[in-house]
């Protein structure tokens, strides 16, 4: 008697679970995982999802926003899960290529063709989407990096114009220091802002081609050219260009140094304006990272973000429809107007853009080469050891040889393991 009772309870629970599972399996929703966790991008992301859900009540989007750093760490688990989330945000370039090569990203060539993306996306971004003539990735926006500064502080210190060459930059540091203003602030507690310094100094010292090869682990970190990059970095440190404890602040906290007039400049991405008080943005401008050697081509960092569909998506049809929406002119126009992210489509109206944005587009279009960013261009373990090395250099420049040896060891290890596989 008691045993059969148990059995009945057991069966009932089982049936209940099964019916829940089948309800889940039948529903037509689209799972969308996004890393837009900073306040402004988050609000925008929620807004475009809400607009979709209003228009498509039969195919609602289940939206999960995951902290940017956590997302990067969880993505492999997402992609291997069955079913995987349908649509995900991600970085264009090497980081996407890794998953495409392993068959974890769905081919969206037919959507690409049906939506006419081939014509409406700028050629460079078509190339970023394509592997072996098939499209996998939908690049939707990018932003520029530059030296942000406060013109009023330059004026106060007697700096007439933003520096265009490295020598002028060093002079600017001297003048600002003389006026009691820290030249550069940096918030490298989580290290990546330091990588921007390496990117720019290396591209300006050795040219973009060497930088790319270094990122792809084709060049050695013991190369004299890398040492030349650090020698330039050393000059900046010697002239006291940087805030005293670069590792103490988070990148957003370092913005306060500019707001509170303690520091005049910050090498940062265009998203700095998300964290900058709106009412003070009139006194915030940017200039191209100064040229060190005028003979070599100019490279800029312009990380590109976008979307893809997981190969193991549960609802590929819904995902493609949602992707087409995310890549549409309307959404890009909105993203451009509200977030100031630069559009990858050529048919977005940018004539109404603020002068700052026009200037940013100009900055990128005049560059000879566009890099993604240190931790997107090179492999994750290399980026980890590299960023650690940059911070060690910052604390103790005399250790440079050991630091470079550590980076070189990591490069050789990665190459060795790759050739094993």
């Amino acid at each position, binding site marked *: 008697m008691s045993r059969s009772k148990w059995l009945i309870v057991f069966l009932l629970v089982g049936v209940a679970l099964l019916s829940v599972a089948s309800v889940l399996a039948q529903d037509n929703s689209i799972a969308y995982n996004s890393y837009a966790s900073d306040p402004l991008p988050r609000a925008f992301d929620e807004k475009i999802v809400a607009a979709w859900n209003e228009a498509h009540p039969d195919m609602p989007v289940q939206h999960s926003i995951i902290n940017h750093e956590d997302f990067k760490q969880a993505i492999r688990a997402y992609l291997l899960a069955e079913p995987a989330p349908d649509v995900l945000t991600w970085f264009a370039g090497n980081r996407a290529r890794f998953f495409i090569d392993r068959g974890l990203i769905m081919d969206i060539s037919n959507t690409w063709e049906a939506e006419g993306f081939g014509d409406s996306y700028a050629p460079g971004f078509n190339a970023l989407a394509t592997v072996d003539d098939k499209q996998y990735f939908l690049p939707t926006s990018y932003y520029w990096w530059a030296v942000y500064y406060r013109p009023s502080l330059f004026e106060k210190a007697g700096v007439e114009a933003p520096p265009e060459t490295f020598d002028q930059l060093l002079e600017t540091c001297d003048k600002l220091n003389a006026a009691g203003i820290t030249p550069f602030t940096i918030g490298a*507690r989580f290290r990546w802002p330091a990588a921007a310094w390496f990117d720019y100094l290396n591209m300006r010292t050795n040219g973009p081609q060497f930088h790319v090869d270094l990122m792809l682990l084709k060049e050695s970190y013991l190369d004299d050219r890398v040492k030349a990059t650090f020698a330039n970095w050393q000059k900046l440190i010697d002239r006291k260009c940087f805030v005293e404890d670069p*590792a*103490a602040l988070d990148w957003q906290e370092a913005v306060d140094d500019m707001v509170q007039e303690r520091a005049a400049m910050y090498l940062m991405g265009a998203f700095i304006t998300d964290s900058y008080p709106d009412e003070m943005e009139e006194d915030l401008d940017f200039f191209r990272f100064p040229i060190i050697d005028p003979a070599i081509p100019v490279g800029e960092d312009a990380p590109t973000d976008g979307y893809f569909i997981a190969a193991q998506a549960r609802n590929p049809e819904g995902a493609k429809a949602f992707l087409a929406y995310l890549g549409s002119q309307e959404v890009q126009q909105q993203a451009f107007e509200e977030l100031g992210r630069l559009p990858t489509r050529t048919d977005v109206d940018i004539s109404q853009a603020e002068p700052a944005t026009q200037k940013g587009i100009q900055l990128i279009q005049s560059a000879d080469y566009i890099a993604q960013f240190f931790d997107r261009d090179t492999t994750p*373990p290399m980026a980890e050891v590299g960023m650690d090395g940059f*911070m060690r250099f910052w604390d103790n420049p005399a250790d440079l040889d050991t630091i470079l040896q550590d980076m070189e060891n990591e490069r050789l290890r990665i190459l060795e393991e790759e050739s094993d596989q």
Partner: protein
Amino acid sequence: MAATLRLNRAQSAASRRRRINWTPYLFLLLPLALYFVWIIAPTFYTMYLSLTNWNGVDPVPKFVGFANFERLFTKDRTFTEALLNNVRWLVVFITIPTTLGLGLAMIFNNEMRGGRWYKISFYSPLVMSLPVIGLIWGWVYHPRAGLLNGFLQAVGVADPPGWLGDRDLAIWAVIIAAVWRQVGYVMVLYLAGLKNIDPSFVDAARVDGANRWQLFRHVILPLLAPVTTIIVVISIIDSLRAFDLVSIMTRGAQDTQVLANFMYIEAFNNYRMGYGAAIAVVLFAISLVFIGFYLSRVIRDELEY
């Protein structure tokens, strides 16, 4: 009627006997299955992964033998640093919070005005999750606007340190945040221990003319020994699995790496699952020594009673 009753009783007695045989196992079946699926199997799977160089994506992990361990112990400076930081953490944890917690327990064990409030205020950090504590202390250590440097500047220190940004101080700054939380925990454990001490021992010692120090040193402290053992072991295990504070406050930058966070970075940031698994296995082996010691103590004590 009476016969039926007797029969029923006999039946139910029989079924009770039968039930005793299999009911515990039936109840244990589900927990044991879960325990196997969620604890035992992953442990062995991790051990297997530590012998591979799996990147988290490839369908078949490649077997590399003990190469991961060899690299950890011979070439990886971060591993040495993390191990050293765990040792620092451990040494601080078994000394400072234990001493402070015992002191506080001795004080608050006496009836006093507002004693309950003090106890609650020392205990309250423990109800906050570690990430929250990490955030709070991140603000305390903020070099410009933080509580600590604000105070230092107010008392005239011209150039206070950058704390979490300072390579020599960062790990200690993180450990202090952990100690802050641990003190209340130790205090509560000792308070419970003190309540269990038979007052007649204390009275007897007083009658024999022991002063306060002798009373503490020769009566109370020995009677607290079982609690002390538990606290030391808990402190060791807590310091070995230190992760949250480092992850939140520095992510292991500025020489603050600890084994658990190092494992997390290698496995989930660098996508080196095999290498991360090897770190996990080392951490497991170290923990096992202390857990074994703890269990042997507990089992021996149980046998004594």
